[in-house]
């Protein structure tokens, strides 16, 4: 083992400690958690998980979250692809300004824009639907996707496009069968970022939903306050929120490792 691998190891240990603590708590009873400090669960229990998997309010929270996150990722990538292509290949009126304006949309303090968002989505009749949250999260996911995809596309030589035209490919066919496969790592990375930011965002998701589309993270805060302070249950629910993310990283791990290397991002 080389000496320099010490740094990542220490860093990863630092990252895993709080996560270990959360997972350990999820196997404890609330009384044990509040009773005092213990490094490992003394009375190991699966009761917290049983509650989550049998109570529809809980497990629907996960289904809701996964639904709008998936929808958002699909929408963001679909519209970002042609836009990123335009930015990477063509020069047009106001392109630079537009590119920076897109980026500025991450900067509005969500805390106060939450109320106008509520009014807007109520007015168009989308309140408490997956689509509402999926569309709202486009505000920050589309600009980032365009940015990432543009980086990857700029890395693909323009000769590829020209050769395809000479060979008689139509634009859509060229885009889908030749261009897209050559930037699929970039699509993977952009999809990962969309998933991540939509999965963890709560303020807008909570504001735009009431019952039918309520995200898991919002259910956690509600149930915790009405049933006293069920720390064990809260920890179990928190632990389960890590799992979909971990699965997504597992699938895109090669894109992250190798994929980034292709473009200039």
């Amino acid at each position: 083992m080389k000496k320099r691998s010490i740094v990542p190891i220490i860093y990863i240990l630092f990252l895993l400690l709080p996560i270990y603590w959360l997972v350990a708590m999820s196997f404890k009873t609330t009384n044990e958690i509040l009773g005092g400090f213990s490094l490992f669960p003394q009375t190991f229990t699966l009761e917290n998980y049983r509650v989550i998997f049998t109570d529809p309010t809980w497990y629907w929270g996960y289904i809701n979250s996964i639904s709008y996150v998936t929808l958002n990722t699909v929408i963001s990538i679909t519209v970002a692809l042609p836009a990123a292509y335009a930015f990477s290949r063509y020069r047009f009126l106001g392109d630079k300004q537009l590119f920076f304006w897109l980026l500025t949309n991450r900067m509005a303090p969500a805390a106060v824009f939450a109320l106008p968002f509520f009014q807007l989505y109520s007015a168009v009749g989308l309140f408490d639907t997956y689509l509402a949250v999926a569309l709202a999260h486009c505000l920050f996911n589309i600009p980032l996707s365009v940015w990432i995809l543009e980086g990857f596309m700029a890395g693909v030589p323009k000769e590829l496009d020209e050769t395809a035209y000479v060979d008689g490919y139509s634009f859509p066919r060229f885009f889908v069968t030749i261009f897209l496969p050559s930037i699929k790592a970039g699509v993977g990375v952009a999809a990962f970022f969309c998933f991540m930011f939509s999965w963890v965002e709560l303020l807008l998701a909570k504001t735009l939903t009431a019952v039918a589309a309520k995200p898991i993270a919002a259910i956690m805060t509600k149930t915790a306050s009405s049933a006293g302070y069920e720390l064990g249950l809260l920890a179990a629910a928190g632990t389960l929120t890590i799992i979909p993310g971990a699965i997504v990283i597992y699938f895109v791990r090669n894109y992250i490792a190798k994929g980034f290397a292709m473009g200039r991002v």
Partner: protein
Amino acid sequence: MKTVNQKAWFFVLPVLLLVAFNALIPMMTVVNYSVQETFGNNLFLWEGLTWFEQLLTEERFYKALGRQFMFTGLILAIEVPLGIAIALSMPRQGIWVPVCLILMALPMLIPWNVVGAMWNIFTLPDIGLLGYFLNNVLGINYDMTQDPIAAWVTIITMDVWHWTSLVVLLAYAGLVSIPDAYYQAAKIDGASNWSVFRFIQLPKMKPVLTIAILLRFMDSFNIYTEPFVLTGGGPGNSTTLLSIDLVKRALGQFDLGPAAAMSLIYFAITLLVSWLFYTLMTKDDLN
């Protein structure tokens, strides 16, 4: 070279419509609020620029703004160099690469309120792992609900824990894209580790670092959920960052007008600083 093609606008149109729908309409509503006094649901009175004047002469606003700049400054000063250092010492190939990447990305995938809640319990003096260890094993008097400095240390540590990996991932991506030929050339020239870093690695990482720094600036400047769940802005007002103060006004006191005026000023500051960063970091590319 890029070709001039005004029809490219059609490619950008869907993005433009979706983002504009989400950005412009809520923004108009906020502008509307910022110049009005609200009574109940339907009664609005024109107030002009009163809220802006009131806010800009208020000590409370400047204090929250000061705390916000201190927070973001510390975050950037810690996370960017740390992220680069970790990325430099990561393995370049082999089975450990995906393992490292997966483990490092984990904190970013935890919903923000869960992050706040888990750090809150993690640092409690009598039942949390970190709090218990610091107080009862090392004998340090550490309680973030009482001591403002402890609260600040906790908030900064939490953010470093949460987001350094973003810098690591992006910096690492920049590093692995450097062709081996550069390193070989540097070796032949007898370049020191420092000059390899300064003249090869750092310039090659610049585009990805630009994204990393901009993202970290914008997100830390707008941070709300995690510190709110962690400390609620306390003890006292010591960790009341700008966004927390804003929500206290908007929802706690229902001062929609002042809150809207404040968020517009907030937005303008974020925009200005981001634009400065962006221009400074990309100015070489434009020439």
